[in-house]
């Protein structure tokens, strides 16, 4: 029953009784992958949509590099990508400005990029709690693949 902490621009995998937890998602997106047969889970906390750098050193930071890496690590542990499904949380717009700059649209752009990366890996998104303007803390449980989402203002929900 270990809670494995996933930082910002970070990812990790778990199985058995363990869970994966990441805190304070704002415009960042939490990508929760689950293989129901092996009960292997993977969680990534991405900050930005895409990295154009093929030699990117921090692959966990970008949607387009984190998704393949997460799948790879889960498969090393014994999961199979054909059985995986995804749940997403985050991608909020924390601030509203009078003039909407690209920076402010980063949340929705992150969500779009994650979905595109998952589509390329043919992993279906089965549930999501994205957008809005609130921060989220999420925990992914390997026993059943449930994703518990905690917000500061709207309480707790489970996907």
């Amino acid at each position: 029953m270990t809670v494995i902490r996933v930082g910002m621009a970070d990812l990790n995998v778990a199985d058995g009784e363990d869970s994966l937890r990441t805190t304070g998602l704002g415009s960042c997106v939490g990508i929760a992958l689950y293989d129901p047969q092996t009960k292997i889970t993977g969680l990534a906390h991405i900050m930005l949509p895409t990295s154009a750098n093929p030699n990117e050193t921090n692959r966990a930071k970008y949607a387009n590099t984190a998704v393949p890496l997460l799948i790879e690590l889960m498969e090393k542990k014994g999961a199979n990508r054909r059985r995986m499904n995804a749940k997403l949380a985050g991608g909020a717009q924390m601030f509203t400005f009078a003039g909407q700059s690209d920076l402010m649209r980063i949340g929705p752009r992150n969500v779009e990029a994650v979905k595109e990366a998952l589509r390329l890996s043919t992993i279906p998104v089965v549930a999501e709690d994205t957008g809005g303007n609130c921060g989220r803390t999420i925990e992914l449980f390997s026993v059943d693949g449930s994703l518990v989402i905690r917000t500061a203002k709207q309480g707790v929900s489970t996907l």
Partner: protein
Amino acid sequence: MSEEIRNLGEFQLSVLREVGNIGAGHAATALSKLLGSEIQMNVPRVSVVGFEEISEIVGGSEQFVIGIFLRVEGEIPGSIFFLLQVESAKRLVTDLVGSMGSAEPDEFSEMEISALQEIGNILAGSYLSSLADFTKKEMSPTPPAIAVDMAGAILSIGLVQLGADYALLVDTEFVQGARNIEGHFFMLPDPGSVRILFHALGVDIQ
């Protein structure tokens, strides 16, 4: 760019600490005038930090805080955050808004929000004008935006802008002892600004 920031030495950081100290002094004086009571500030901590460490300063990424965010535009672009615990923020604006405040302990009325925005304007404006005097560079703050939420979620908007895994952080703590108010004023120059900033201060970096 990330490497450049990690290689900053103690001397460079101390120069920025001194400049930050003067800027924060101006900001504290301006805020004291607005509030009619004395605000103290600590000597800024200037450090090179990873993403996670920034929210640790205010009690962890899940800590419920109010964040006032301004972008710095001009020759040395960057981000400014003023973060306060919700209770501290409430106490800070009480005298300014009087009966126009929200009665709920963790909610802010429109009047309280605009008072906090004004505080953000004053702090950032006086801090930046002092920094502009030192550097002879032009910089100005955008209008402030406010969010009440988890610290990590609020700060992430500044961190995504960095494009690097490390940030140069100037952290100044503001304290109003009598009413137990404390807040953190963060300045995060964009990675591309770091070299320009130090060059303008007369300390070139490698």
